[in-house]
């Protein structure tokens, strides 16, 4: 999941028929899947559409930072792995757009919302990939955080989303493994490679922690989303899990976590870590990330400068049908 969690509180009790709502809530509480044809509260539909389309957009925009290095990957093997990974991300975008479409919003509308800035995508992709080490760092940390978010979503209440997540999660674990493996080569490599690795780790660590969204006390939808099984764990719970798993991995690589306050807390059986710069997070959500403009320009240009291709395909299809009918 790559949501920014910056949504208005869904207003549940408004206009819905209380009986239907109660039946719906009971089904969700019993861990049944809700399917496209089933009745659902408007707010559930809206929240899910926003969450799934945001996730889809993140997969697609996320192709850009990594695509930036495909042509410069340092070996044939790394090039093939990176191509395969970015291709997977395009596939994830596709399943997720399809899942969101089952809720009644067309892909064109969703893409329009992305390009107009109305729809959000994960803040993480508004940071630049400066050196090759950013590619391993993204696989290890960003895909790692994504998995942490997505594994529980395989049991999310909306059937098409849950099923999309099952497919996505299978591929995400390959993404994380390839990232960690590539990071291992750098961390055991020449002094220049070690420097690259540490620098990338320094830059991606905090944005990765921000991927879990605002702290629970500032996450207005969490309670509702948990109740609806759109979310299954809170932002802070997932973030803690991520830190606890990732810190030993960094130590194994000989990398220093860029957090002077990081300390093992025996009592809680997890790490304490320093304060996250939420001002930075909210600024990036507002579109002030270092390469936000580049990302949106690239997406809009790809869409607009190739509009003629989509028009041609539609025109040809229409002609073909006409000929077949004649």
């Amino acid at each position: 999941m790559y949501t920014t969690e910056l949504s208005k509180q869904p207003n549940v009790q408004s206009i819905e028929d209380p009986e239907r709502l109660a039946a719906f809530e009971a089904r969700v509480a019993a861990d049944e899947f809700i399917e496209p044809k089933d009745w659902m509260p408007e707010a559930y539909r809206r929240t899910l559409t926003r969450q799934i389309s945001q996730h889809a957009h993140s997969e697609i925009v996320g192709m850009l930072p990594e695509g930036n290095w495909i042509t410069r990957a340092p070996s044939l093997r790394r090039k093939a792995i990176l191509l395969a990974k970015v291709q997977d991300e395009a596939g994830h975008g596709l399943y997720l757009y399809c899942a969101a479409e089952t809720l009644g919003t067309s892909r064109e509308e969703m893409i329009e919302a992305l390009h107009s800035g109305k729809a959000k995508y994960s803040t993480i992709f508004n940071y630049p990939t400066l050196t090759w080490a950013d590619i391993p760092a993204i696989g290890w940390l960003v895909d790692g955080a994504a998995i942490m978010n997505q594994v529980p979503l395989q049991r999310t209440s909306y059937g098409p989303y849950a099923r999309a997540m099952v497919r996505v999660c299978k591929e995400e674990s390959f993404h994380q493994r390839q990232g960690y493996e590539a990071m291992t080569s750098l961390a055991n490599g020449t002094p220049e490679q070690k420097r690259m690795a540490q620098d990338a780790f320094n830059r991606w660590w905090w944005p990765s922690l921000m991927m879990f969204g605002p702290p629970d006390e500032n996450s207005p939808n969490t309670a509702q989303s948990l109740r609806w099984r759109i979310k299954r764990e809170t932002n802070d719970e997932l973030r803690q899990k991520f830190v606890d798993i990732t810190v030993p991995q960094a130590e194994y690589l000989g990398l220093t976590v860029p957090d002077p306050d990081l300390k093992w807390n025996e009592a809680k059986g997890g790490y304490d870590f320093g304060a996250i710069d939420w001002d930075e997070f909210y600024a990036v959500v507002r579109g002030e990330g270092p390469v936000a403009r580049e990302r949106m320009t690239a997406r809009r240009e790809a869409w607009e400068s190739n509009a003629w291709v989509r028009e041609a395909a539609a025109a040809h299809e229409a002609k073909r049908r006409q000929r077949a009918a004649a």
Partner: protein
Amino acid sequence: MPSLPPIRPEDVATAEKIRPDGAFDAPSDAHDPVRAGYLLRLGDDSLILGQRLSEWCGHAPSVEVDLSLANMALDLIGQATLLLGEAGDADSLAFKRDVLDFRNCWLVEQPNGDFARTMVRQLLFSTWQHMLYQRLTGSRDEALAGIAAKAVKEVAYHRELAAEWVIRLGDGTEESRERTLDGLGWCWRFVPELFEVDDEVEQAVAAGIAADPREFEAEYRAEIARVLGEAGLPVPNDQRPILGGRRGHHSEHLGHLLAIMQYLPRTYPDAKW
């Protein structure tokens, strides 16, 4: 000479482990420059076109097209890895040679241009590659025959995909038709090079390694004419062939492509990735 015991797999593994970095990787037929030269031509075609296609990543007309372009790029990089691996050390060959030692044809190094040019280039190349690889599955060189047998299925799909797009674009809107004609005009100059048979190819054909492309030139031209016909596009007039790629004389574009592709291994020659 007394017969020797067979080499045990565990000995090979040990030898592999203690081999110093950068030690000479003996090609399987180090003594056979004809074979190696032919493999380089095939491998470089795949590598350079795969590199070009991967430039589209994230910028294609739709998510579906992004997927199919990445998929083709991945197939081509895979072919290059196998073919160059038969000619020597694949990574050194890909990342440490300069333009004069690249053996790919001019067609594959052409810049992507717009989507129409990319698809025309793909049609012209993949149709040729498909016909060639069908024949190479019968190569006397077992390694090459095996690579061709695997690749021919991938290439059949590339060929089909490109033909479908050229038809869609040629028979789409006025704009897409114009763009496809432009792409055809750009790429057509490089078709004759695909059928050029120089001494090296002649020797590889004689050795039973290579296929003679002249055998399927008529079939190729008929197939391209069929696709263009379906697209409602005229077959361009032939002009004086542009040749030289097979001998290391390329367009200006290749040097820039290599500068990007090779920058890391050249900047950090001691690094392993």
